[in-house]
C-alpha cells in the first residue's frame, strides 16, 4: 500500500493504481472525456490534469493527467486550483470551437461558464472529439479494425486508407462507447451498415428476430470456442429452450419418483 495526500487528505492506495481511480473513490470530481473503465487510459483529453508535488521537490510542481499517473508514496496532489481551472477551461474552449454543435461538449463547457468559444468556431463542426475510445475498445476486442489516421488537426478515425475497414465485424462496440454519438450505424432489413461496410444479420431460427452480424458470430465462435450453431437462435429463444428442457426434466424426475 502507498500513502499519499490528495487535497489535504491522506489516503491509501494500491501500488500501481492510477491517481484518477483514487480520486474517484474519494468522491472528487474532475471532468474526463477519454477515460473509460473498460479500456486502457491514453491521456488524450487532458481534462483530468492535476497538480503534483513532493516534499523534497523544493516547491517545484508538475501538471500530470491523473488517469495515467501511478500513485507514489508521499505524493501531494491538488485537483482543483486556479491554474487547473484555467487549463480545463481553455481545453473546453478549444473543443467548443471544433465541435460547436455537439451537446456533450456544449454541456461540459457550460460548467466552466462558456457558452461560446473564444476562438472562431468551425461552421459545420465535428462531433468527433478524438478521445480514441472507439479505437481502444476495438483493440480490446482484438480486431483493431479502425485507427487514428492522418496528423494534427486533420486527424480522423478511419479504416485503413480511409476505406471500409476489412477487419470490422460490425459489433457496434465503437458506436456504443462513443461519448458524442459520432459513429453512425443503421440496421435496415437484414443488413447492418457501419464504417461504410455492410454486414448480414443473423436471423433467429425460432422466432426470426435479428441478432448479431455473421462476422461477429463467427469471431466469437472461434475466440470462445463455442459450438458452431450457438448463434442460430437468439438469447430469448435460448432461454426458452433451456426453460423447456428444465421443465421436461422436472416432469421426468417427478414421474420417476411416483
Amino acid at each position, binding site marked *: 500500500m502507498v500513502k499519499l495526500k490528495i487535497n489535504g487528505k491522506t489516503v491509501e492506495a494500491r501500488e500501481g493504481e492510477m491517481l484518477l481511480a483514487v480520486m474517484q473513490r474519494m468522491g472528487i470530481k474532475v471532468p474526463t472525456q477519454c477515460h473509460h473503465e473498460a479500456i486502457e487510459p491514453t491521456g488524450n483529453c487532458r481534462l483530468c490534469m492535476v497538480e503534483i508535488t513532493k516534499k523534497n521537490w523544493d516547491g517545484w510542481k508538475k501538471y500530470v493527467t491523473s488517469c495515467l499517473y501511478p500513485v507514489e508514496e508521499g505524493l501531494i496532489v491538488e485537483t482543483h486550483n486556479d491554474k487547473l481551472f484555467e487549463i480545463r477551461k481553455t481545453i473546453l474552449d478549444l473543443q467548443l470551437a471544433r465541435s460547436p454543435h455537439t451537446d456533450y461538449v456544449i454541456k461540459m463547457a457550460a460548467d466552466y461558464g462558456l457558452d461560446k468559444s473564444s476562438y472562431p468556431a468551425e461552421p459545420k463542426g465535428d462531433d468527433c472529439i478524438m478521445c480514441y475510445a472507439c479505437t481502444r475498445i476495438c483493440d480490446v476486442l482484438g480486431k483493431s479494425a479502425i485507427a487514428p489516421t492522418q496528423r*494534427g488537426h486533420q486527424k480522423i478515425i478511419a479504416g485503413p486508407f480511409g476505406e471500409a475497414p476489412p477487419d470490422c465485424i460490425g459489433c457496434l462496440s465503437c458506436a456504443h462507447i462513443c461519448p458524442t454519438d459520432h459513429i453512425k450505424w443503421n440496421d435496415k432489413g437484414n443488413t447492418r451498415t457501419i464504417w461504410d461496410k455492410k454486414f448480414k444479420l443473423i436471423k433467429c431460427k425460432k422466432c426470426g428476430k435479428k441478432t448479431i452480424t455473421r462476422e461477429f458470430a463467427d469471431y466469437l465462435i472461434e475466440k470462445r470456442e463455442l459450438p458452431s450453431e450457438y448463434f442460430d437462435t437468439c438469447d430469448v429463444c435460448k432461454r426458452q429452450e433451456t426453460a423447456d428442457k428444465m421443465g421436461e426434466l422436472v416432469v421426468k424426475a417427478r414421474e420417476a419418483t411416483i
Partner: protein
Amino acid sequence: MKIDSITKLDKWRKEILTKQKAIKTKVLICLGPGCLAGGSDLILKEFQTILKKKKIKDVSIESVKKTGCHGFCARGPMVIIEPLGIFYSKVKKVHVKDIIEKTLQKGEIIEKLLYKDPDTDKIYKEWRKIPFYARQQKIALRNVGQIDPDEISDYIANGGYSALAKILKGMKPEEVVEQVSKSGLRGRGGAGFATGRKWATCAKAEENPHYVLCNGDEGDPGAFMDRCIMEGDPHTVLEGMIICAYAVGSQEGYIYVREEYPLAVVNLQKAIDEAHKYGLLGDNILGSDLSFDIKISKGGGAFVCGESSALMRSVAGEIGEPRAKYVRSVLKGLHDKPTVLNNVETFANIPVIIEKGADWYASIGTKKSTGTKAFSLAGKIKNTGLIEVPMGIKLKEIIYDIGGGVTDNHKFKAVQTGGPSGGCLPADKLDLAVDFDTLVDNGSMMGSGGMVIMDDRTCMVDVSRYFLNFLVEESCGKCVPCREGLFQLHKLNEKICEGKGTEDELKLMENLSETIISGSLCGLGQSGPNPFLSTIMYFRDEYEAHVKKQECPGGVCKKLITYRINDDCNGCMACLSVCAADAITGKKKEQHIIDEVKCDRCGACYAVCNINAIDII
C-alpha cells in the same frame, strides 16, 4: 576475414596504415548534401576518368576519395588536396583538368579556386587556416569529410574501433558507464539529459532484454548535423552503440532514420554489413563475450517521431504517437523493456570519450555543458555549413567569426536556435554563451543544433507564423491542447500577419500558450508555442506595429505592404521581366510603375533590382 581478437584488429590496422602510406597525395572530394547538389559527383567521376589514363608521380586513382560533408557548404563543391590541405572551393567539372595538370602534376596552386575572405580579401591556401575552420574543434565530426564513408578501412585507419577494443580489453561495463557519466556528456538531441545517468539506469534495470536505440530522425528544418554524421561517418555511430550495448547489457539495437535521408540509410546499411563481415557486429564481437546486432528502422519523416516514446512506437511498427512518460522510457521503452535512446551525435562522441578519457572531454566546454556541439548554420549567413564548436562559445563568435556574418551586408536581426520549438534571440543576446542552460534561461533552447540566421528583411511575426504552421502540420493530433491549441494559435498569428489582429487576441494568444505548454502530452506541444513566445518576448514592437498600425516593419507580410518604384529607377526592365503578375509597366530607360492592384507582392522585383529603386512601404 573475421577479426576475432584485438591482436588481429591491431594487425589489420597496421596493414591498412602501411597501404595508405603508399598513397602520398590524397584528393578529397566532398559528397555531402550541399556539394552533391552542386554536382560534386560529376567532379569525382571526371577525376577518376582522367587519372585512369594519366600517370602522375605519387598520384593514382586510389588517391581520389569521396568523403562526407566537409562543412563549408557555402563554398561547395569542394576539392581538398592532402597532405598540404589545399582548399579549392566552388569547383566545377571544367576545373578538374586544370587541378590535375597544374596542382597534382606540377605542384602549382590555382589561385582563382582558393578561398578569399570577403571581408579582408585575404586568400587562404590551406583549409585549416580559414577562419571558418580555425575556430572549430571537431569530436563528433572528426572523421566526417576526412574519410570515405563506404570504406571501413578508412575508419580503422583513423583509429576506428579502438575504443571498442579498449573496453573489451580491460574495462567493466560499470567502468564504461562511469567514464561516460564523468565526461558530463549530455544528450545532443535537444533535451540535454545526462547520458551517463541514462545508461546507469538502464544497466541496473532488472527486466530483460535491454535495447539500444539511436535517434536519427532529425526533423528540425535547417538542421543536418546527424544526417552528415550518418552519411559521412556511419561506423562511429555503430561503435558508439556497441560500446553502449556493452555498458548496459544489450544484444539488440536499432537506428531510426527518416526515409528522407536515403543516403544515410544506404551508408549505414553498408557499414552494418561490413561490420558484420569483419566480426565487429553479431555474435562474439572481436572474440569476446559481447554479442550485439543493429538493425535500421526507417521512419516516414514525421517530426513527432523524433520524440522518444513516439519513436519507440514507430520502431515497434505501431502508430508514431507519443505516450505519457510517467514511467520513463529508459525503464519501459521499446516493447515496454528498458531502453537507452540516444541521438546520433551523442553516440558519435562516445568512442572519443572512451579513447581519450572522461577528464579530457570534461575539460572542453563549460562546467555543466561539457564537450563540443555540432551546429548547422543556415539562413541569411555568409558561411552556411556544418560546424562543431566547444560549448560555451559566444553566439556572436559562431555567427561572425565562423559564419562570416550576415549576407549582403544586411543587419543581423535574430538567430533561431533549437528548431521550430526553440526560440529566436535578438542582437543584444549575441554575447550569450551557447550551452544547454543559458539558452533555456533566455527563452530558447539548444535543440539538436540547427541555427537559422535572420536579417533585417525578416518579419518576426511572419517567422512565428511560419514555424507555428510547421508545428500544426507536424502535431500528431492526439491531445487537445496541441492539436486544437496550436491550430488556433496559428490562425490568430495569421490574422495578425494580415493586419486583422487585435490587442485582445494577442492576450488570448499568450494565455492559450500557457495552457498548451502545461497541458500538452509530449515535448512537441509543451514547446509548441515557443516560436510565438520567444518572438513576442523580444520583438513585441513588431507585433504591436501589425496590430495597432497595420504595418509590417520587416516588409514581409503581403497584406500590409506595397512595392513602389522610386526615382532612382534607370529603366533596366529587369523587374518588368520577372513580374509574373504583369503588374509592372514602363519603357526602356524610363521609370517603371507598379500597378498596386495587379501586384501580388511576391517580391521578385525587389529581389532582382540591384540599384535599390524599389521601396517597400
